């Protein structure tokens, strides 16, 4: 990175460190923090969407839809996330390619499963094998987002289901008495009010989501723990200009600080959000706010 870094073996102390910490490998490490943050930023709303869908389905008056909603939440939550991640991404990828294959290559006559191989026509490949590397990486990233969203969506569905039930029943009855249809009452009365009941559960879910990121490498995304292991391990002078012993402890300490800091910041933000949501609500918290203002 810096001009004086051409021959690291002659360097010492801080100059050595400044060169060491700016190698391409370290830049990948720093970039992985961005990857993880972006992934969290995309996964959280997606999971919420899945959760909302799941919760609405579980409350549906149409029986198959209700079974689907309840089955989704019950099954996905009963399985440890590692076990899920170990086979689910490949399955998801194959499912997408299978569907594309059916649409794009209806004339294809060879079987898709040949022995152990899973073969679809070239045009159905996701992404196309001619696509540049970044497309492949983005696709892998999106698959990881989707897998995370499906798992955490099941938890979110459970929280939202509880929150929908917690909205005072009288509110809904009043809405219907005013002539609102079932759909109107749901969207105008229940949905705006349920968030305050859901927030404690959802904020915990967010904390869990943060702490599930070390599992990202199972999904093919190079996360911060992967790079910390890779960089911290002993390196032989034959393979690097910066040989060192087992430094995993330092790297993991750095990660520990990152996670604790991230948790703390999240706690503060969520607390503010809770205050805002509580405003004007018929809960003890809302009552307390009203009294304090008066």
């Amino acid at each position, binding site marked *: 990175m810096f001009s004086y870094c051409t021959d690291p073996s002659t360097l010492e102390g801080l100059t050595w460190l400044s060169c060491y910490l700016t190698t391409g490998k370290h830049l990948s490490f720093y970039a992985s923090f961005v990857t993880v943050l972006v992934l969290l930023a995309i996964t959280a709303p997606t999971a919420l969407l899945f959760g909302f869908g799941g919760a609405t389905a579980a409350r549906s008056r149409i029986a198959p839809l209700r079974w689907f909603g309840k089955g989704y939440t019950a*099954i996905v*939550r*009963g*399985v*440890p*996330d*590692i*076990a*899920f991640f*170990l*086979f689910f991404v*490949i*399955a998801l990828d194959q499912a997408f390619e299978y569907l594309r294959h059916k649409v794009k290559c209806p004339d294809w006559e060879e079987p898709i499963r040949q022995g*152990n191989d899973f073969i679809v026509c070239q045009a159905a490949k996701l992404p196309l094998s001619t696509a540049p590397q970044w497309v492949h990486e983005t696709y892998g990233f999106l698959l990881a987002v989707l897998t995370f969203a499906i798992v955490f969506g099941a*938890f979110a569905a*459970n*929280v939202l289901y*509880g929150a929908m039930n917690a909205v005072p029943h009288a509110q809904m009855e009043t809405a219907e008495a005013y002539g609102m249809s079932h759909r109107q009452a749901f969207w105008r009365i229940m949905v705006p009010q349920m968030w305050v009941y859901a927030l*404690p*559960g959802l904020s*915990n*879910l967010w*904390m*869990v989501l943060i*702490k*599930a*990121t*070390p*599992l990202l490498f199972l999904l093919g995304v190079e996360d911060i*723990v992967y790079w910390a292991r890779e960089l911290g391990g002993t390196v032989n002078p034959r393979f690097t200009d910066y040989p060192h012993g087992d430094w*995993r*402890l330092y790297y*993991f300490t750095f*990660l*520990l600080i990152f*996670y*604790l800091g991230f*948790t*703390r910041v999240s706690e503060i933000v969520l607390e503010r959000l809770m205050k805002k949501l509580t405003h004007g609500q018929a809960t003890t918290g809302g009552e307390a706010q009203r009294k304090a203002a008066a």
Partner: protein
Amino acid sequence: MSCIETIQAYALRSIGLGERLLPRGDYTLCEHFTLIGSGMIWNVYFAVMALLLGFFFANVLALGKAAQSAWLRKPSEWFIFLFRGSPLFIQFFFAYFLFLRLKSVSPMFDGLTAAGLGALIVLFLNTAAYSAEIFYGALRSIPKGDVEAADAYGITGFRRFRRIIWPTMLRLAWPAYTNEAIFLFHATTLVFFSAFPVHQQKGDSLYYASYFADKTFNPFVPYPILAMYFILFTLVIVWLFGMVNKRLNRHLPQAQRPRVRYRPNLLR
């Protein structure tokens, strides 16, 4: 080998009894089910022991966090923050590192680097922190009237805590605590996966599932079997905790009894 023989040979393989060599050659479904099920012994062991021990420590921590004195409150707060704020993955790493250091200090600490004790300690501290936060939340939402009524009857001090406050706290916390138990149970799969070495191929269910996945190169059989076992055991936990919940709320009229809903309020 017939399936019965397979079960005889491998049902207790994870604790070192039965056939020494793991199956080779064609890997039958029966072998999959038997060995992965055998590995569940470790998962159940970790979960049960950590929960039992963690429960007591969590009570102490929750009271500590609710205490007036900063000398009691601050350490509890920091302990809970440290364990709830970092991934279990990283906690295992640090713990293993620390145990290795301790081992070189004195042979007294030899057992710590084995998963059976070392990982149990980490899981115990972890679940204690999470449960303490749940109990602390419950402690703060005990109805004022309950405590006032106790005072009016002249029940004070430790007796008031044991007869009034503690049972109420437990009753309020129980649904969330059920979830914590489930998440701890799921977290036991991390023990051999990331942190502790496996001795003599005596591993947990995930270890055997990945053994099969590695040998057959087909992840679509062993991992769903593992998932199935976990769903089954999760149902058992929900049922057991539901029984306790019933007992905790036995004084309430039938209609008012809160049912344990599997709702993740506090999780890992």
